[in-house]
């Protein structure tokens, strides 16, 4: 633009005003809109911490230098990154700067009367004239009223206008987008999201320490976590016999709310979470936890209980680790749990079906230093075997035991576990409202046309019209109007 040369002459207020006008211009808004789209792309090409932390750490393992540089540009946290936020915040400022003045203007215009009929109608579009009968003005008045035009009548002429809904819808659409953004911000400030693995038959008490992971918004306090307790009673998974694909998961729980003494029986399914006040509980994953008893050389129990194993494939071959740090030397077991065991050459075994039809626990026994005191956080599903040596290898059926040098392990059986997500998302209703208003506004703005029709009756009747944005259909409307005036059907 040529005015850009004027910038140095402006004072600071003028500069601000200039910057504001640039930011709220349609062209800038359009560029920002396209930039938001482009900026969203890297998040779909690289793994994101919020969705796939494992893949991100794999990146750091495989390409540490590249990953560090990518991290510097927030490529693993695109949607929370300063640059992504900058673009959408600018976009929304631009949007507000554009929409608010237009709302006031529109509010004024909607109450104002249409402008008076132009002097020379023959210059306008769709102009027609014919000799008057006398009752045309009367007929036109009725017609405009029936069609809900806003009219201004000045000595023998009517100026009629319709289609304000277009701009109303347009403004509502843009205001609704702001509403959605408010909903999202509200959720991220006051919301919470936690995950917990609970074995079937066990209880979950809703306190911060019960969660495996817990994230909450800046303004969410621990005391906001509602107190309740639930017991996982029963979990049933159904699978397709031919394909092993899951067909249904049903989870039965008993819920005890705070201050209540009655236990409520509830069912949670994948598409129907349980709602407790503002918190919803989702069934997200499930798997097996083999129950084992580890004894030392004297026969005393060193460890007993279910150990959560992680599913690896569609037939729920699961892996996990059992750590017995109190033994001397320390003992660790690396295990595979196969719900339906079949022989397979290389791995020694595989699972043929996700249900526990023929469960088997394959173990390798390790002796030495588990490395738990090194301070480096360890996965509970793996063992660091660098300072250990393998002292045994065995496959067990339920009830069987294996004796190794220094102790024994018994495979007692298994329980199923479920991964529950606990979510409080207080802004979602606001966002949904925004979504609904956005669609309605969009429909109103795309499918109504703003147009004016004029009629002047003297010796001749003159009719003309004008459509904003050259919207189609006015010609047909005027034809109908003229036919009505002439008394044709």
């Amino acid at each position, binding site marked *: 633009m040529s005015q850009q040369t004027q910038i140095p002459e402006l004072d600071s207020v003028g500069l601000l005003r200039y910057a504001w006008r640039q930011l709220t211009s349609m062209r800038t808004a359009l560029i920002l809109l396209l930039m938001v*789209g482009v900026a969203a792309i890297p998040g779909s090409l690289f793994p994101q911490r919020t*969705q796939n932390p494992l893949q991100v750490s794999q990146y750091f393992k495989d390409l540490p230098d590249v990953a560090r540089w990518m991290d510097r540009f927030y490529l693993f946290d695109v949607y929370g990154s300063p640059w992504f936020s900058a673009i959408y915040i600018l976009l929304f400022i631009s949007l507000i700067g554009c929409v608010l003045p237009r709302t006031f203007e529109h509010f004024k215009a909607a109450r104002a009367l249409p402008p008076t009929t132009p002097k020379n109608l023959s210059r306008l579009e769709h102009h027609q004239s014919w000799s008057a009968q006398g009752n045309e003005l009367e007929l036109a008045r009725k017609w405009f009223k029936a069609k809900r035009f806003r009219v201004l009548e000045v000595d023998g002429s009517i100026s009629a206008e319709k289609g304000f809904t277009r701009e109303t819808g347009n403004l509502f659409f843009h205001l609704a987008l702001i509403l959605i953004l408010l909903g999202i911000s509200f959720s991220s400030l006051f919301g919470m999201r936690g995950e917990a693995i609970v074995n079937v038959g066990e209880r979950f008490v809703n306190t911060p320490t019960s969660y495996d992971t817990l994230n909450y918004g800046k303004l969410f306090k621990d005391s906001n976590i509602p107190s309740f307790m639930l017991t996982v009673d029963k979990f049933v998974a159904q699978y397709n016999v031919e394909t092993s694909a899951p067909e249904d998961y049903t989870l039965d729980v008993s819920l005890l709310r705070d201050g209540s003494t009655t236990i409520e029986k509830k069912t949670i399914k994948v598409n129907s979470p349980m709602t407790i006040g503002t918190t919803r509980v989702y069934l997200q994953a499930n798997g097996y936890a083999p129950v084992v008893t580890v004894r030392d050389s004297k026969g005393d129990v060193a460890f007993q209980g279910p150990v959560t194993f992680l599913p690896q494939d569609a037939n729920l071959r699961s892996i996990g680790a059992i750590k017995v740090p109190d033994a001397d030397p320390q003992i660790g077991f690396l295990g595979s749990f196969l719900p339906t065991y079949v022989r397979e050459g290389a791995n020694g075994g595989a699972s043929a079906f996700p249900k526990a039809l023929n469960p088997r626990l394959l173990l390798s026994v390790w002796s030495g230093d588990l490395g738990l005191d090194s301070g480096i956080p360890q996965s509970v599903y793996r063992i660091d075997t660098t300072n250990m040596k393998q002292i045994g290898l065995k496959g067990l059926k339920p009830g069987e035991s294996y004796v190794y040098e220094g102790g024994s392990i018994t495979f007692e059986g298994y329980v199923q576990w479920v991964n529950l997500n606990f979510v409080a998302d207080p802004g979602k209703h606001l966002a949904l409202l925004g979504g609904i208003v956005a669609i309605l506004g*969009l429909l109103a703005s795309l499918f109504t046309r703003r147009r004016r029709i004029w009629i002047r009756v003297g010796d001749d009747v003159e009719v003309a019209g004008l459509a904003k*944005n050259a919207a189609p259909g006015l010609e047909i409307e005027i034809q109908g109007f003229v036919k009505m005036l002439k008394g044709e059907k």
Partner: protein
Amino acid sequence: MSRSWAYASNYLVYSAMAVYAISFIAHAVETAWAVKVPADKSSTLDYKRTEKVARIATAMMILGFFLLFGGVIARGISAGRVPWGNMYEFSITGALAFSGAYLLALRKFDLRWLGLLVSISVLLTIGTAITVLYVPSAPLVPALKSEWLVIHVSTAIISGGVFLLSNVIAAAYLYLDRMESKGERTQWAKRLPDLETLDLLSYRLVAFVFPLWTFSVIAGAIWAESAWGRYWGWDPKETWAFITWVAYAAYLHARVTIGWRGRRAAWLCLFAGSTFLFNYIYVNIWGTGKHTYSGL
């Protein structure tokens, strides 16, 4: 019972493919025959010569549509659910939506010149579906068991069909625009609509279907809230649906507010449409995330 429905579906889809092939050949003959008017005899084309074959082409297109419709329905019955559980099913339904959008638009505008492109696209889509994407009919995984599947996926497929139709028209605009800038249109291109009509048609299709696409994204968000515990999570498919939405929003603003027409608008339209295609192909086949039900 369900197996015989699955077989019936396959037969119907195969027959639809054969009929679309006839339609394609008829469209090709129509296009080619119209060119063969000797240039010295007259400068305009003799439409009557191709009228009969053009009618055959359209009739075959309609027949193909109904056969494919039957195939999609039978597939749904065999699986005991709506037939949108994997990429094979998305593809045959998408082809159905695309040819349906063309046939519907044909009632209002003379779009027969587009028939060649439409029939070949449908043929290629069904062909790929049968040869590469086919998976046996099976029930849904638990996350897909929701009434939102019907609402979300059907609106997404319809939106996609109309977006692509608008894209084809935008591409035709750019092609003819280039041809005109070099001189006169060649004989066969003379029967195509003028540039202004193409420009407007492409825009109207987008304006018509943009609210539906918005609805589809929001319906998906509502479903995601009940299935995955969040209504928006920047899953690759969600991200690309958002990018498509933003691109078409930019296109509408460029046209309505800034007044873009013609070449620039057509390019923007093609860009927006390509984000939709990218989402469908890339995310379904190579992508990760919660939307990968393709069975590939």
